[in-house]
């Protein structure tokens, strides 16, 4: 390794090695299953199935990279995009950790904190799921009980209510335009709740546009 490589350069190098190895491993599951069971499904069902999801998934995937990379930092991004569950877990975890540590995303300290938050969250999630899978028989009736159902049905409002207080109260001027837009949009077209991922960059663009106007007017 060249001695003049920076920490950031090395993060990119390691990140690429890990993410591309993960890519190979992720493909190894269907390949190994096909070989072991001698059950290649053929092109038609795969392409037909893919047609139903790929256009939206591939677009949202690209949008997620553009939106979340600035928040997660370098190592956080290489890790979070492999471990998944970004909007409901990794991004809020990284943002809250940076807020608690009083560091800014994109700074050297922000990079450290975001990486630690994403890694901790990934390890804990993997362990909890593994324990859950091992104890599936006794756990299923508890987790699927009608009493607990409302708690898990409402995990997103429970999460974003708290997050909103932290960020909206500090930046209420920037928040008004995207918030009003999103509330009105979802009131008018409730079915959009299924594709909220596509609306994240729309909200971001509106927030950045209104912030720019306020900034130019000297109101921020």
């Amino acid at each position: 390794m060249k001695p003049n490589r920076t920490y950031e350069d090395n993060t990119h190098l390691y990140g690429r090695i890990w993410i591309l190895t993960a890519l190979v491993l992720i493909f190894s599951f269907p390949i190994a299953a096909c070989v072991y069971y001698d059950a290649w499904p053929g092109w038609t069902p795969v392409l037909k199935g893919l047609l139903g999801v790929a256009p939206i998934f591939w677009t949202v995937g690209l949008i997620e990279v553009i939106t979340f990379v600035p928040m997660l930092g370098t190592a956080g991004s290489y890790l979070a995009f492999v471990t998944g569950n970004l909007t409901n877990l990794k991004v809020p975890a990284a943002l809250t950790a940076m807020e608690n540590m009083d560091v800014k995303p994109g700074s050297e300290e922000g990079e450290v904190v975001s990486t630690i938050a994403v890694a901790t969250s990934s390890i804990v999630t993997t362990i909890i799921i593994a324990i859950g899978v091992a104890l599936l028989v006794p756990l299923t009736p508890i987790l699927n009980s009608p009493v607990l159902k409302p708690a898990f049905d409402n995990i997103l409002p429970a999460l974003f209510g708290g997050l909103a207080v932290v960020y909206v109260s500090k930046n209420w001027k920037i928040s008004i335009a995207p918030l009003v837009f999103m509330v009105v949009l979802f009131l008018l077209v409730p079915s959009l709740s299924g594709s909220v991922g596509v609306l994240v960059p729309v909200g971001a663009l509106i927030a950045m546009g209104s912030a720019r106007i306020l900034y130019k007017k000297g109101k921020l």
Partner: protein
Amino acid sequence: MNFNPSSTFLFLLAGVIIVFVICQSLFFLVRAYRRGKALGMDMGKLRRTMVSTAVFTFAPAVSILLGVITLSKFLGLPLPWLRLSVIGAITYELPAATSTANALQISLSSTITDPKVYTAIAWVMTLGIFPGLIWVPLFIRKIQGGLMKIKNKDSKWGDIMMTALFLGMISAFLGMVFSDIRKGLRGWIPIFILLFSALLMGICGLLIKKINVKWLENYALPISMLGAMVFAVFLTPLIGG
């Protein structure tokens, strides 16, 4: 050969990949921790942040586990376990399985016994969301370079823009909570829960600022989230959701 979607072979396959991802997380965790030390960061505070992140992760992780259980009814355990531990989310995997089942004109009401149906679903799940793993190495430097340019030109605007980016994301999810409002009072349940979570966060904020309860800083988000989830358990039957 009889096909069992929860076979030892498939468990081993999924297990190896999941262990790899744990190793990746550990690698970056240790590296970032050492970096934090080298930068002279407050390591005690950093460790407390790690603990609070772990606590915060608990409820969403259990909710992900519920997704594994849902998918396991027709896909067996190994594939959902793998997909929701690595790369995926229930919002991706369920539509991918449904889309493939529709294409093959089969029902997902019982466990899959045809290995070709199983592998078709596994392929659609894999091909459906693998591009994210390519976009990151491909675009990360460009995105960060663009951000650096903006920050170097006007650092205050750079910070405001980052904040606006978060607020855009939060706004989209806050707006989504209002989507069921037309269903009458039960459509308001998510809004009440959101407000309750916000109220708990507000109380935590007051306790931190006014009475100086410092330890709460790290636990305010898990407390408000779990508190609001408990509130949902009591509120929903009351309203009749």
